């Protein structure tokens, strides 16, 4: 069953110059992107900076409007986890209020109970609720952002580079948490990252983006073992493996 279907999406941003901010041209951020995501899968979207992957995520979330093309979402229960947990949490709100905000907007009942139980999910102590974001490490903050997303009971989460500002040991913890949550609540992820290793670890299927287009798409194993597009091959050959065996015992 398809949960998301994007057809031929285009999006340009104007280039403005000078004091009068005259439009002198446009950047094609998305140049005819189509993809479909099945319910329950993790769909990886990989590409280098400026390729349009975040723009696509924003259009799917409805934060940006596409110039043309259609987005068909089979659910309205959609959430987002951003890259930088230093910017995505309001510094003036306590953790309890951050976590409760979505539930209040939904008109939910038993808010305190739900918020408290979400702490177990992300392995933070009850005392965390009275603290402010700055009192937590980057990894803990990302856990809070994850709990905030999960609390509103979404079916579909756009994860936009959720681990790229974290150290490797913390990355792994967060990725494992995201995997567990997906399984436990049978959710669907659109997982956006520039890091091929992270995408491989997380995804069932993957699309490779470049300059506003998807150049290759397929099951992770197929794309990683027999890439068909030269750009995918270039990306894959840029991965620096730490093969201990390659350096001789």
């Amino acid at each position, binding site marked *: 069953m398809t949960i998301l279907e994007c057809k031929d999406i285009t999006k340009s941003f104007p280039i403005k110059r000078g004091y009068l901010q005259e439009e002198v041209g446009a950047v094609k951020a998305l140049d005819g992107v189509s993809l479909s995501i099945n319910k329950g899968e993790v769909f990886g979207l990989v590409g280098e900076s400026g390729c349009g992957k975040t723009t696509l995520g924003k259009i799917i979330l409805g934060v940006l409007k596409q110039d043309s093309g259609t987005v068909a979402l089979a659910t309205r229960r959609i959430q987002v986890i951003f890259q930088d947990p230093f910017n995505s949490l309001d510094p003036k709100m306590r953790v309890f209020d951050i976590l409760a905000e979505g539930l209040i907007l939904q008109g939910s009942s038993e808010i305190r109970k739900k918020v408290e139980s979400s702490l177990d999910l992300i392995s933070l102590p009850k005392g965390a609720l009275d603290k402010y974001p700055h009192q937590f490490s980057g990894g803990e903050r990302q856990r809070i952002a994850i709990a905030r997303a999960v609390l509103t009971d979404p079916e579909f989460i756009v994860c936009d580079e959720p681990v790229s500002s974290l150290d*490797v040991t913390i990355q792994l913890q967060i990725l494992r948490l995201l995997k567990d949550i997906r399984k436990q609540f049978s959710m669907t992820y659109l997982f956006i990252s520039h890091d091929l290793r992270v995408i491989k670890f997380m995804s069932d299927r993957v699309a490779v983006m470049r300059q506003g287009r998807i150049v290759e798409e397929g099951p992770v194993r197929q794309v990683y073992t027999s890439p068909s597009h030269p750009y995918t091959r270039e990306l894959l050959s840029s991965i620096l493996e730490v093969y201990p065996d390659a350096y001789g015992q």
Partner: protein
Amino acid sequence: MMDGTILKVRDLKTHFQTDRGVVKAVDGVDFDVRTGETFGIVGESGSGKTLTALSILKLVAPPGRIVSGSVVFKSEDLLLLDAERLRKIRGSKISMVFQEPASAFNPVFTIGYQIIEAVMAHQAVKMSKARDLAMEFLKRARIADPAKAYHDYPHQLSGGAKQRAMIAMALVNSPELLILDEPTTALDVTIQSQILDLLDEIRERERLSTLFISHDFGVIARMCDRVAVMRKGLIVESGDKAQILNDPKEEYTVSLLESVKALA
């Protein structure tokens, strides 16, 4: 000088006086960089690896302070030199490439101007000679269009080209020791591999001694001969690359490598 030690760091401590007490960012670090080798320091954020590099050149800003130790470059202890002597060494005998090429250049001067400035600060040459040197090193750094890059302002270059220009500037005074602090971290992977190729080529040609700092074990494994693993201001383990990667002794190194391998 072929098979000696070019840099000897002993008991280096850099502390920060804060309202809540002393933060021991670098807390007793010892290591040697041998002539002609690439020595890597790997660690997670906050481990003190960048401050170690900055301390070597006495570039630590207050409230940070180098509280003890010695940094012997060839035969001089850099920490004992006066400002004038140190300025003669920075950017000439020892040069440094920083992580963020966008903020390492001055935005209001052209690339060519900034490289010439580096030349004139250290070499008694005429302007025309300095200009030739700047062009030559931009070419050596394999910038796509050196003549254009020379006249460009930093913002007109891509991230990769900017880092190439940075490398050109670091090499223009023929340093003996090159300190690279996360030189590819801000770049896309395909650009990263191009820059690492360039650094390989330069090291081979110039037989440069290099101190290479990175959080990325993949980059360290690719570039270094010997490696030190840093954590909380201390080197927890150091040795030949093969030994550290194949047979780490410390639990922290093991856990770090496991996180990397789990994602491989």
